[in-house]
């Protein structure tokens, strides 16, 4: 059953898209286009190249922000997980960042960083970083102690224990935080384009919405989701590659 998982994916996709098409045809709302209308809008945007232009704009803050959040987030998360002092001082910041309604804070960001790339990168970071930091730090605390002891007995230095024991042991949870962080980063990038300055894909969404071109709006949203899902799958591949033995399969197998 080599292709089983592919079949399952295709079937469930067909079901959902079918439901979408039907819902669009009823229609459940005049603002809800059918699947085919949306896909033809997507095809149109792909062929006239406008979607690529938009993404070249959107991906800039996204990539920068996600890269910063990943590196800084995992680093800070490790530090918070390891040092009680650091946790005491800094975990409130991330809880605040995580809980703060970003939309309400955007004026502050605009004030401080203007309406350019910096603000957008900032939004992406604010969205992506806290989950990464908090997951990493909680995972670090659950590292099996017998393995730490083993490494110590084989003369592991602190950085060895960190890199070779704590990170691999914590990796499943770090990666689940990372997934959420990266997707939050996607959302942040779009949000910043909707709320700070409409450029790129956010512009397509808000413009087609304001001219009631709903198929284009849904097509743009669909393309973001598609991109994010592809990216998350890539992330999962990386996880499986880096920490192969951590994948012990499913209990039902």
């Amino acid at each position, binding site marked *: 059953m080599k292709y089983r998982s592919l079949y399952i994916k295709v079937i469930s996709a067909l079901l959902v898209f079918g439901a979408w098409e039907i819902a669009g045809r009823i229609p459940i709302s005049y603002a809800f286009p059918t699947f085919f209308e949306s896909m033809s809008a997507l095809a149109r945007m792909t062929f006239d190249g406008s979607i690529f232009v938009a993404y070249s704009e959107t991906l800039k803050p996204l990539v920068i922000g996600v890269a910063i959040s990943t590196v800084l987030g995992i680093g800070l998360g490790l530090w918070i997980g390891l040092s009680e002092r650091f946790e005491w001082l800094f975990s409130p910041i991330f809880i605040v960042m995580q809980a703060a309604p970003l939309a309400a804070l955007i004026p502050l960001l605009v004030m401080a960083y203007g309406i350019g790339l910096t603000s957008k990168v900032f939004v992406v970071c604010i969205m992506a970083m806290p989950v990464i930091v908090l997951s990493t730090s909680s995972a670090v605390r659950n590292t099996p102690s017998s*393995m730490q002891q083993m490494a110590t007995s*084989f003369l592991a230095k602190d950085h060895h224990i960190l890199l070779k024991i704590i990170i691999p042991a914590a990796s499943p949870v770090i990666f689940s935080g990372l997934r959420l962080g990266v997707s939050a980063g996607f959302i942040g990038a779009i949000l910043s384009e909707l709320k700070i300055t409409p450029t790129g894909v956010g512009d397509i969404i808000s413009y087609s919405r304001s001219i009631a071109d709903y198929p284009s709006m849904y097509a743009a949203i669909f393309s973001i989701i598609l991109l994010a899902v592809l990216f998350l799958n890539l992330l999962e591949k990386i996880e499986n590659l880096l920490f192969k033995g951590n994948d*012990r399969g499913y209990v039902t197998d």
Partner: protein
Amino acid sequence: MIVDMSQTNSDFAGVQQPEQDIAVSVRGVSKNYGAVEALKDMSLEFPRGQLTSLLGPSGCGKTTLLKIIGGLLKPDSGEIVVNGKPVVGPGPNRAFVFQDFALLPWANVLRNVAFGLELRGVAKSEREDKAAKYIKDVGLAGFEQAYPHELSGGMRQRVGLARALSVDSKVLLLDEPFSAVDEQTRRKFQEDLLSLVANENKTFIFVTHSIEEAVYVSDQIAILLPRPSRVSEIIRPSSFRLKGAENIRRDPEYLDIVDEIWASLRNYVE
């Protein structure tokens, strides 16, 4: 055959031979876990180039003692001296085989075995060559790429053993290293240990529950009392090796000494 017996721990200091070269000495070590007294004022010396077995009831504190010697636990009082220097933590002169194996679940056999070398900064190709050799020695050739969860209990134990042997330390702390392997393999490993003792002057501290094994491989056997643990006797069954593993099972001297240990162990159980 020499059998020294020092009935109590306080006598013990008197019988030690000063001319002997002591690799590890345990001096008045106590250790409590909360209300549980694991070790109480324990003193014991491990001569260099010899194999010392620790025999004692389950839960008496053998693992605790080994971990203290290994520098993984701090004693509540007392000290450990290795090669004349007090122990403050783990060191390259000691390698550990863990009772619960302590393998990295995310690493395959090759990486697990090479892990000790990896931590010492040995280059990848070199450490993998070395690891491959030890994997073969413990009979796991062909399983280099397997992950711990794909191995049987005994195979996991052998991975832990190979890891400790590969770092080539002078003192080896073995916590029930053969408990899950079959007799045949165990016999081979015993021979390997003995040849390491004889040819490379390594010092072994060895926990086992098999009296026969202890008698066969040990230069000295320390018999521990149950919790709180102290040394009750030291026995030196030093000449069986020469007779060969095949023959000793029916050797009356061997059987006598097993009975003797058996008798002194059972004394306090119940």
